[in-house]
């Protein structure tokens, strides 16, 4: 029972049925990490002692006849911007390593562990989450499990690599402008960016308070739903966390999708895309029998407004560090943040006003559709260090263009599941976008696509 293909659901069932001990599941994950992480560079910390202690406690509880949670014995890992008790929360930076060790776990880690999951480590990420590549000047790049010469995508790069490489069945990441959906696309896995305010961000290192979301990455829609359900619920420690009740999705997953109106995003979302992204959206649309195209209004301007709010809120967050320790930043991040500090305030206010206008227009659209399909990334994973790519004869910068299709969606906090389309040689993702608070719909569609074989997380080919 140590097969890397075991899902979180399989592990939890086997552990609860005493066919597999939590300690065996934990040791298997630690062994996979020891074997493959020298290539993937996904992990920055391995919490082996903590994981073994947790697993032994679970096994003792099971032996004593106690009920265990729906994630019993499931190994998971978190992007290193989550507080892990006893570790300094580095958030991909050099500077934060000087912080004292966290006194308490992030809320989402506490909720995963309350459901029986076992934390095995913290994961590599782009510095301060201001990144779409998964590269990191301090810790080295996360490497793609299907081709280690390529990017994982970022900023949750280690989360993408660890799940795409099947080291753990579930990882947690953050998504401000696409940082869960981009690595999900490049690494060929499922990723959920919930509605803004759905999952607590308490005790995670922030980036852009207006847009920051946390969520899971997994190898199946079922595992996404299992972890998402375990993490829902109000948390007074996050000012943006919604008081909505817990709305479990697992019981809804297999309801089917016949009642759903599904459309393809046109215009902006069909521009600046490579043939692989066109192919992936086409396959998903065909599987769902979606033929209608809808126009998300002013998407390019929405992306611009997201960019402005991101760079200015990011600059505000790091202002003092920019003054006192500028040479300890990744120079590319520092220079973006300094520029962000120089944007006149009225432009930021305008961007927040535009955000409200845009939200109302997109919500109008959701009166006529339930799901919108769009590319998760314009391309498959670029090569590590790649600076430009050529599209339709035009040379474009890689970094600035990876997130063009994710930014207009997180800008207004819509829930999205990125589903993997297993093209060869590299997979690529498609966004399943739903109305606010309808994660259930996006996950039902992802589950249906998986059942049809249109979406699947391919076995890692590069390790």
């Amino acid at each position, binding site marked *: 029972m140590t097969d890397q293909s075991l899902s979180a659901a399989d592990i939890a069932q086997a552990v609860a049925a005493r066919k597999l001990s939590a300690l065996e599941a934990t040791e298997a994950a630690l062994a996979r990490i020891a074997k493959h992480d020298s290539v993937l560079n996904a992990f920055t910390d391995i919490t082996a002692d903590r994981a073994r202690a947790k697993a032994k406690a679970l096994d003792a509880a099971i032996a004593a006849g106690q009920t265990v949670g729906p994630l019993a014995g499931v190994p998971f890992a978190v992007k290193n911007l989550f507080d892990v008790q006893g570790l300094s929360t580095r958030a991909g930076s050099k500077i934060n390593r000087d912080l004292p060790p966290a006194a308490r776990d992030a809320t989402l880690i506490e909720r995963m562990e309350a459901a029986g999951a076992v934390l095995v480590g913290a994961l590599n990420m782009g510095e301060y989450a201001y990144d779409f590549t998964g590269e990191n000047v301090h810790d080295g790049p996360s490497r793609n499990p299907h081709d280690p010469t390529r990017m994982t995508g970022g900023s949750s790069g280690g989360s993408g690599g660890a799940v795409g490489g099947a080291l753990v069945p579930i990882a947690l990441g953050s998504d401000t402008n696409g940082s869960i959906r981009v690595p999900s696309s490049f690494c060929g896995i499922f990723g959920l960016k919930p509605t803004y305010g759905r999952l607590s961000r308490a005790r995670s290192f922030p980036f852009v308070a*207006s847009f920051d979301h946390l969520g899971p990455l997994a190898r199946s829609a079922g595992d996404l739903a299992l972890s998402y359900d375990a993490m829902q619920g109000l948390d007074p420690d996050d000012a943006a966390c919604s008081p909505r009740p817990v709305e479990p999705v697992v019981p809804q997953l297999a309801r089917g999708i016949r009642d759903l109106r599904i459309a393809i995003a046109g215009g902006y979302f069909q521009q600046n895309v490579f043939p692989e992204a066109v192919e992936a959206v086409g396959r998903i649309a065909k599987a769902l029998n979606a033929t209608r195209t809808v126009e998300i209004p*002013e998407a*390019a*301007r929405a*992306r*611009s*407004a997201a*960019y*402005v709010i991101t*760079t200015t809120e990011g600059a505000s967050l790091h*202002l003092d560090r*920019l*003054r006192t320790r*500028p040479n300890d930043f990744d*120079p*590319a991040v*520092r*220079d*973006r943040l*300094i*520029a*962000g*500090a*120089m*944007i*006149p305030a*009225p*432009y930021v*206010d*305008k*961007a*927040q*006003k*535009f*955000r*409200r*206008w845009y*939200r109302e227009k997109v919500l109008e659209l959701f009166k006529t559709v339930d799901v919108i399909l769009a590319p998760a990334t314009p391309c498959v994973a670029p090569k590590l260090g790649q600076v430009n790519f050529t599209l339709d004869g035009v040379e474009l910068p890689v970094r*600035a263009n990876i997130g063009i299709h994710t930014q207009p969606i997180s800008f*207004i906090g819509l829930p999205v599941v990125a589903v993997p389309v297993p093209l060869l040689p590299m997979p690529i993702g498609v966004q399943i976008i739903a109305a606010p608070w309808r994660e259930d719909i996006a996950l039902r569609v992802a589950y249906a696509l998986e059942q049809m074989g249109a979406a699947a997380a391919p076995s890692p080919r590069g390790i």
Partner: protein
Amino acid sequence: MAADKLDDYIDAVATAMGLPVEDAWRPAVRANLEVSLRLARMVDEFPLPDETEPASVYSA
């Protein structure tokens, strides 16, 4: 904005905010600022009613 005018702006804001901008970083800071200002102007050009509330409305 002309490059030299933007350099003057960078100097002025850096001084006002106490931000370091070393000569070696200036081209990258300026390039980033040019992109951000271009995108900000694209948002600014969009006509909105005077009554539009920002998305970040505070609730007491």
